[in-house]
């Protein structure tokens, strides 16, 4: 297995493939998934390529498959899943597949058109039935009389629509008052939505001489149809005269209204009714049979449709790849160019051999490695564990070819940095269990092919989350936070120095004076000095202390700074690995070393001070580094100290006047220097700081100027220019001093300012862990604590259920998911910006091999 420290060596290979065996060889390479083919016909458009007809045939098959799948899912028939691991079909199988799909599609089309015709007939019968049912109501004698009346009114011109631009016609009065027997009628069915427009139109067009009555009906959908019931309206039109009849029928046609002739006579109507009913029954049984047949065909298709579509996808992708090859002048072989990891060349050769054997060709394909100046793509051999972390790095930028990859360190630093902000053992356990479940059911989840994007994001990062959970438990124990409570495992190292009498007395005093009286644990008396500090993590006693935050904040702040500076220091060290790999002495001596000096002289020095202060300075007066230290009020202030170092402020030596211990051993306040915490606290501090500052200041112009000037000199002398651009390509093209200078200036400024701002940026470790701790404490105080104290007895137990459920939901929702996400993002930022900016280029090209697995996963929507 390759390492993920640097990307794999890649070779650009030229493969000569026999036309006969090319398909099989590419199929084998697709299964292997280790070759990235280059498009040698980039200037040709899609339809000018050699295998365009095969691609078209695949398109056609895909269309048929889509149609079949649509039909299958529409009828709610199970589509059987297929394995991704089917072999790519042989070219001759393509014809079979095509014929098969053609057959099924034809059959389905046939059945569908038959069913449709039958269904239409059925609907017509149903409509006819509806008309017959309703016509009785519509045709009562009253309606006829009304119609006659309305029509005669209209023909006299007393009623009817107002017409614009038409001279009113005066009809002869002899024909008025036609009897209702003269009226003819037409019945039919129209869409409910069109009814009102239809009525209006009829009225206007025929000038009120047609009398319309309508009635709403619901026509049930025919058997086997997936449409919902349609709402129609049965209409009856009364009118007289032949002239109108034609017009009315035309209007009906215009509105897609179906006319059903209905006899006037009641007996005839009844006969017709029974006839229609019989026809409906017949139609039902015929329809039922057709639909059964369709279901059978669809069931059969549903079993295979996924398998077929995978096959077609494979064929299509092979031909797409073949289209990228150039054709030899003799037309007998295809020439492919591909990037291949150098270590996998034997495997590629094996695949080619297998492909040749399978196609029965006699001539082996020839594989040549080619010399190239192109930048090869970046490829890491990953496994399911490392891929999550590599994704974190890749999201920022793909590593340059053979550049140091930050991913291996990210595996540990990422969860650790995350946990610094998420430090709570309880929440860490929940996270660990969640990720653990992912791991336990890993195989089953992968097989289930879940398509939900959010779920896949979490599932894809299951190993990251698992480690984040583990580290959170660790930091939680360090911070001694378990759902915001501390656990006293080893026994606190602090004692209560007060006697019972003193305590009782103070209580009475407190009750009388109506004040809160606090007890102070003086470290001199209350701390078990002989036994040393609490063995692991924070002493639980601090959970009770009022000045808990005053104690925790500086500690976490200093911890953040130390962690941050070590990570940045490590980043600069990694840049050395890149420089040595590029054999660039100029970068090592004039970039790396000044950077290192700058970082060490200011920031590493600060870290060392922090640690020394932790070790040596505490409440007891003693001699430290040969200077008398009178007590905690004189402990050196490092922040102001750092500022004073820059300002080169003159300070006194030591903490007390004369800088010697008092004769009686009891420190006196009047002996202490003014602002004793700001003075020099070790011998030679002034000189040492002066030197450090000088080195740091000098290293800036070295970083800025030397490299460009050396390169300029080399350029003038006509020698090859040493040293890369750091980031970006190796100085190809013209040497331009201006560009190099600007580039170097940007980098120097970025580094120098970056060291300061990035150090400050690491304070987010403290800020977020504080926020997390405070939030979980609020949740405890406001919910669980209240629930426990509100009521006693059974009521309290019941109440506890309610409070706990809210507590649990908020804990998971806010503290684990939201806070976790926020800590994750901050950890991401710290890695991308603060860590990787020290050494990582990230301008490489991703290796994208031709792999069936990936294509299939993409087509299933499992990957993008």
């Amino acid at each position, binding site marked *: 297995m390759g390492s993920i420290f640097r990307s794999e060596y890649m070779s650009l290979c030229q493969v000569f493939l026999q036309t006969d065996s090319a398909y099989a060889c590419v199929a084998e390479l697709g299964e292997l998934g280790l070759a990235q083919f280059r498009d040698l016909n980039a200037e040709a458009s899609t*339809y000018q390529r050699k295998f*365009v007809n095969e691609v078209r045939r695949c398109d056609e098959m895909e269309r048929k498959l889509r149609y079949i799948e649509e039909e299958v899912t529409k009828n709610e028939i199970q589509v059987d899943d297929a394995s991704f691991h089917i072999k790519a079909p042989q070219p001759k199988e393509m014809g079979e597949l095509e014929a098969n799909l053609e057959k099924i*599609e034809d059959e389905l089309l046939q059945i569908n058109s038959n069913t449709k015709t039958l269904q239409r007939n059925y609907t017509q019968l149903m409509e006819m039935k509806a008309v017959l049912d309703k016509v009785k109501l519509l045709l009562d004698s009253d309606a006829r009389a009304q119609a006659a009346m309305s029509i005669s009114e209209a023909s006299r011109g007393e009623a009817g629509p107002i017409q*614009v631009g*038409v001279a009113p016609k005066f009809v002869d009065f002899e024909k008025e008052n036609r009897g209702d027997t003269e009226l003819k009628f037409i019945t039919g069915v129209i869409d409910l939505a069109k009814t009102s427009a239809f009525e209006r*139109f009829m009225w206007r*067009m025929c000038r009120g001489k047609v009398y319309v009555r309508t009635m709403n009906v619901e026509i049930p959908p025919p058997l086997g149809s997936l449409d919902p019931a349609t709402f129609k309206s049965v209409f009856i039109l009364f009118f007289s005269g032949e002239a109108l009849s034609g*017009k009315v029928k035309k209007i009906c046609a*215009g509105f897609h209204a179906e006319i059903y002739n209905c006899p006037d006579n009641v007996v005839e109507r009844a006969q017709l009714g029974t006839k229609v009913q019989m026809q409906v029954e017949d139609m039902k049984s015929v329809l039922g049979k057709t639909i059964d047949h369709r279901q059978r065909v669809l069931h059969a298709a549903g079993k295979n449709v996924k398998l077929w579509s995978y096959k077609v996808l494979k064929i299509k992708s092979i031909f797409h790849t073949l289209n990228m090859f150039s054709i030899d002048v003799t037309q007998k072989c295809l020439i492919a160019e591909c990037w291949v990891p150098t270590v996998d060349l034997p495997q590629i050769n094996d695949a080619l051999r297998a492909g040749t054997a399978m196609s029965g060709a006699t001539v082996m394909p020839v594989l040549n490695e080619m010399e190239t100046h192109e930048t090869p793509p970046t490829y890491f051999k990953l496994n399911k564990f490392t891929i999550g972390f590599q994704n974190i790095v890749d999201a920022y930028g793909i590593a340059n070819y053979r550049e140091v990859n930050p991913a291996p360190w990210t595996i540990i630093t990422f969860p650790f940095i995350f946990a610094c902000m998420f430090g709570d053992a309880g929440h860490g356990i929940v996270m660990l269990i969640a990720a653990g479940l992912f791991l336990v059911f890993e195989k089953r989840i992968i097989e289930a092919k879940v398509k939900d994007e959010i779920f896949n994001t979490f599932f894809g990062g299951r190993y990251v989350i698992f480690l984040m959970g583990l580290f959170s438990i660790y930091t939680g124990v360090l911070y001694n936070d378990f759902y915001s409570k501390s656990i006293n495992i080893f026994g606190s190292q602090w004692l209560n120095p007060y006697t019972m009498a003193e305590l009782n007395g103070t209580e009475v005093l407190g009750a009388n004076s109506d004040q809160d009286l606090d007890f102070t644990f003086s470290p001199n008396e209350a701390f078990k000095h002989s036994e040393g500090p609490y063995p692991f993590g924070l002493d639980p006693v601090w959970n009770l202390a009022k000045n808990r935050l005053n104690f925790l904040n500086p500690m976490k702040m200093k911890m953040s700074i130390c962690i941050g500076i070590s990570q940045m220091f490590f980043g600069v060290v990694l840049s050395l690995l890149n420089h040595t790999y590029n054999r660039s002495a100029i970068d090592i001596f004039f970039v790396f070393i000044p950077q290192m000096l700058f970082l060490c002289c200011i920031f590493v020095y600060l870290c060392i001070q922090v640690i020394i202060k932790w070790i040596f300075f505490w409440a007891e007066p003693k001699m430290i580094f040969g200077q008398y230290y009178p007590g905690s009020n004189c402990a050196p202030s490092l922040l102001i100290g750092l500022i004073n170092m820059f300002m080169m402020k003159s300070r006194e030596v030591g903490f007390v006047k004369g800088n010697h211990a008092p004769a009686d051993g009891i420190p006196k306040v009047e002996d202490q220097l003014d602002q004793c915490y700001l003075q020099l606290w070790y011998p030679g501090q002034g000189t040492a700081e002066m030197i450090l500052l000088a080195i740091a200041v000098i290293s800036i112009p070295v970083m800025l100027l030397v490299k460009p000037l050396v390169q300029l000199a080399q350029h003038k002398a006509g020698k090859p220019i040493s040293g890369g651009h750091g980031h970006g390509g190796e100085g190809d093209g013209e040497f331009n001093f201006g560009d190099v200078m600007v580039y170097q200036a940007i980098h120097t400024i970025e580094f120098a300012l970056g060291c300061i701002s990035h150090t400050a940026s690491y304070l987010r470790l403290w800020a977020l862990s504080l926020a997390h701790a405070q939030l979980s404490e609020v949740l405890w105080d406001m919910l669980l604590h209240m629930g426990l104290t509100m009521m006693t007895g059974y009521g309290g137990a019941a109440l506890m259920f309610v409070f706990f459920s809210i507590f649990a939901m908020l804990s998971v929702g806010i503290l684990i998911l939201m806070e976790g996400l926020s800590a994750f993002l901050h950890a991401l930022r710290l890695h991308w910006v603060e860590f990787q900016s020290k050494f990582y280029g990230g301008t490489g090209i991703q290796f994208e091999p031709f792999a069936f697995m990936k294509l299939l996963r993409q087509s299933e929507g499992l990957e993008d």
Partner: protein
Amino acid sequence: MGEFFFNIDHGYLEALIRGFKGGILTQSDYANLVQCETLEDLKLHIQSTDYGNFLANEPGAITVGVIDERLKEKLVTEFTHLRNNALEPLATFLDYITYAYMIDNIVLLITGTLHQRPIAELISKCHPLGSFEQMEAIHIASTPAELYNAVLVDTPLANYFVDCINEQDLDEMNVEIIRNTLYKAYIEDFYKFCENLGGKTAEVMCEILAFEADRRAIIITINSFDTELSKDDREKLYPRCGKLYPEGLVGLARADDYEQVKQVCEWYGDYKALFEGTGPNPGDKTLEDKFFEHEVKLNVHSYLHQFHFGVFYAFIKLKEQEMRNVIWIAECISQRHRSKIDNYIPIL
């Protein structure tokens, strides 16, 4: 001030339309399309553009008709989405765009009926953006008055039709006059509507509509030579909201031949350029094509401004032009008439 609050109501749709506009075929797409040998090639290439798989589900060999239908379908889907999400006054504005298609459909149906064509065939030729409920019953009307009283009175076109109501039978001449009268009333109304909207919309749309009005006036004039249309009647058909109004229209009304039209238009800087280089000689572009090019230019320019409705109108017009182009290329390919395949109007 309108610009400040534009995005509250119309921001989403403006963003959407600009996205749609980004999908309009580019020069290089056209360069590829004209090289196609068959319609299958065209289908293959068009799949790599923003049209995507709109032809992928067509069984069998595709025809120009199918392409046309699918293109229209896609446009209608996009337009319907816009219309469904639009708030006032954008909704009305979008409705106005459809009126032009309604006019075309009415005229198409009436002319078809005069030529005794079956109604189903005519309906399939109608532009789906301009369909309305009573459309299919239109062929029953035999006089403009009937047309108005029965069909159009319920449509938004009713107001425009008032001028053409008479009891004469519909004939071809009549229909042309109806079309132009309707168009005139429509453009003037639309122009007024945009003017009332004010702001950038008015600025952009009035420019486009003024050109549209002038184009119609010029084309009506040129087409009316050697017909029985009298000069007075002709003058009544000119939309009066363009740059030619009033002096230019008077000149056009008096014109007797093409040269005179050209003389009138030479007074106007925008139109002078269009008449130059047109003519009957081979290699010259037709005046019509020049007009289309100018229209495309105006529409594309409307995208240089923000916070106005002109982009919606321009998108529909550009898309329409693109559809004409694709159909032109497809026709040339299917009829093996490649010499004229480059005569499409490029969209810049």
